[in-house]
């Protein structure tokens, strides 16, 4: 019987397989950041163990880093101490680190692909659940906890039980104005936040094949929001073209050998998945969340659902609690929801194509009165690219704030936070209670919807801007 893409990559990394034991998998690339690594380095020190493969390990600073005044000492002493701990650990153990101010600094999941380190058929881990992003290259990539970070540092392997596989097939054409973010939010709403639990997802179908690498990263990034540790897309010419010439991409004969291998990395025609989901791309439209988990989403044209409409008691209770927290009423049109803040950035939507898409919409327009729009590039290099294209000027002229790279308001570990009761349209990945700041309310959206929302002051898609000069005053919230 044929094998799936996930099974092929898995099998190629088995160091040891024994009856009754989890497989011991080799890890090709280990990404580190300041938040989930300090206790792991401490563990190595206590046991007197070195980092086994410094040449397969790289660190960057992202979660705590400020996006303003990066040339000044970090104001929050606790954040500063955590970054200094990473710097000391990397220096002590010899790990390559890209610190604040370095051109390669940025969100760890933006940095790996941009350096060409994320490659098809590799295993990639990081103490961060959005490591699933790297699956866009046909890599088996997943988030791990700190104990596993220590395990990989010490052994370059992980003992793991093989997950099941789920195919998510998206055929057809995405309608104009519908993005990768809308697609993944719709997938999560369909299968639920636990639907992918225990599975590796493989996204496939003609709609996926047409997407850019950056769009594919947006989709794989949010596999974890569907409960799956990993999501993958088979590599193709789009993947190879993205990698060619990047700093750590193979060269010469190695390139040819690599591409020959990469071309074998697709699910066989007779491979069997444990589960299959089919989505018709043509049926999709801009999608936003209304609740406090990423599965609580709906098309922008819809209204806030009535909790009473849920048959499942636990879902009904969850919807009731979500509406209470979000300050929303059943039946309210989603387009009537006013926002205070718009955040464009994160490992989900902080790459150059995302910034271009948002800039194209706010260009020549103004951010609505009373709305704060933050634009945070995913990495310092993405920021430089945007500046070279003049996007920073476009954003600033529209009244948005142009910032330095980092995780920023996705999780508010740095000063970029929502105040209690404030509401955001955010291109990030989680609308959990308090995620963007205590009491903050988050609506997950695409960069295009974020930009249109910034201009109109209420949840909106670019199509709503055609009559922007006579933009209606929203009634709600």
């Amino acid at each position: 019987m044929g094998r799936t893409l996930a099974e092929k990559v898995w099998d190629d990394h088995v160091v040891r397989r024994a009856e009754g034991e989890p497989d011991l998998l080799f890890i090709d690339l280990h990404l580190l950041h300041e938040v989930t690594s300090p206790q792991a380095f401490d563990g190595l020190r206590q046991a007197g163990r070195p980092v086994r493969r410094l040449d397969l390990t790289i660190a960057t600073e992202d979660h705590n880093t400020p996006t303003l005044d990066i040339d000044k000492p970090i104001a929050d002493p606790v954040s500063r101490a955590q970054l200094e701990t990473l710097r000391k650990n990397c220096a002590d153990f010899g790990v390559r680190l890209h610190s604040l101010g370095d051109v390669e600094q940025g969100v760890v999941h933006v940095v790996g692909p941009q350096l060409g380190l994320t490659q098809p058929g590799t295993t990639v881990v990081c103490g961060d659940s959005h490591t699933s992003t790297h699956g866009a290259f046909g890599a088996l990539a997943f988030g791990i906890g700190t104990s596993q970070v220590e395990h990989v540092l010490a052994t370059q392997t992980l003992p793991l039980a093989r997950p099941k596989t789920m195919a998510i097939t998206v055929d057809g054409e995405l309608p104009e104005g519908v993005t990768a973010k809308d697609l993944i939010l719709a997938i999560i709403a369909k299968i639920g936040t636990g639907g992918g639990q225990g599975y590796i997802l493989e996204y496939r179908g003609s709609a996926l094949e047409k997407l850019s690498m950056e769009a594919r990263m947006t989709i794989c990034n949010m596999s974890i929001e569907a409960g799956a540790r990993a999501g993958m897309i088979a590599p193709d010419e789009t993947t190879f073209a993205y990698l060619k010439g990047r700093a750590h991409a193979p060269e010469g004969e190695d390139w040819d050998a690599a591409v020959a291998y990469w071309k074998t990395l697709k699910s066989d025609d007779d491979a069997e998945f444990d589960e299959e989901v089919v989505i018709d791309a043509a049926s999709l439209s801009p999608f936003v969340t209304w609740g406090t988990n990423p599965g609580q989403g709906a098309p922008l044209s819809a209204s806030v659902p009535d909790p009473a409409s849920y048959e499942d008691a636990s879902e009904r209770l969850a919807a009731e609690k979500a509406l209470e927290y979000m300050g929303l009423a059943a039946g309210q049109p989603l387009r009537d929801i006013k926002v205070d803040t718009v955040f464009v950035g994160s490992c989900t939507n902080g790459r150059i194509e995302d910034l271009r898409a948002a800039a194209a919409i706010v260009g020549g327009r103004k951010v609505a009165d009373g709305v704060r729009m933050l634009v945070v590039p995913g990495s310092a290099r993405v920021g430089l690219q945007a500046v070279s294209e003049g996007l920073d000027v476009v954003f600033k002229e529209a009244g948005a704030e142009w910032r330095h790279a980092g995780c920023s308001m996705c999780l508010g570990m740095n000063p970029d936070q929502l105040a209690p009761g404030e509401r955001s349209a955010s291109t990030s990945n989680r609308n959990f209670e308090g995620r963007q700041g205590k009491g903050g309310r988050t609506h997950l959206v695409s960069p295009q919807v974020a930009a249109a929302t910034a201009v109109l002051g209420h949840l909106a898609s670019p199509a709503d801007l055609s009559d922007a000069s006579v933009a209606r005053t929203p009634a709600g919230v």
Partner: protein
Amino acid sequence: MEAFTTHTGRAVPLRRSNVDTDQIIPAHWLKKVTRDGFEDGLFEAWRKDSSFVLNRPERQGATVLVAGPDFGTGSSREHAVWALQNYGFKAVISSRFADIFRGNSLKNGLLTVVLEQKIVDALWELTEQDPEAEVTVDLEAREVRAEGITAAFELDENARWRLLNGLDDISITLQNESDIAAYEAKRPSYKPKTLHV
């Protein structure tokens, strides 16, 4: 890791689904660089509400958390496990756990037990009616027991063996160091490297 064999204690019924790791331990707590001192951050936002179940006097000293489905979704932060343990929890029962949270819990000796929702419902009813009711989580017998309730649970034999004996994963893996070295020796040259050493 501390070994887990069997544990008996009072329970906290948490009637919520999708309890994500941002609720278990908010991000600002993640700036700490130790594995302890997270107990005050556990469910920090909800604990501001005096009626929240964890704040009730009859729940003080409880050690078994009985939660709704999809417990531990979201971030990979192991701090969520440490916070539950620092607070005093020894076991968490739910009908479904997020994969990364579950892996983290078992690496730290916090036993996460998957039971059918109808058993979870029965445990909720029992412990809400009688806060003194004790719940036993028996890893040797792979069984949860409380008054009127006996439910078997599954846990793969390897994970169970590691927990029962409190074994350190890294030491176990390093016993197979020669397998790792053999694998490394045959890795293709086109594989990416972060350093040229």
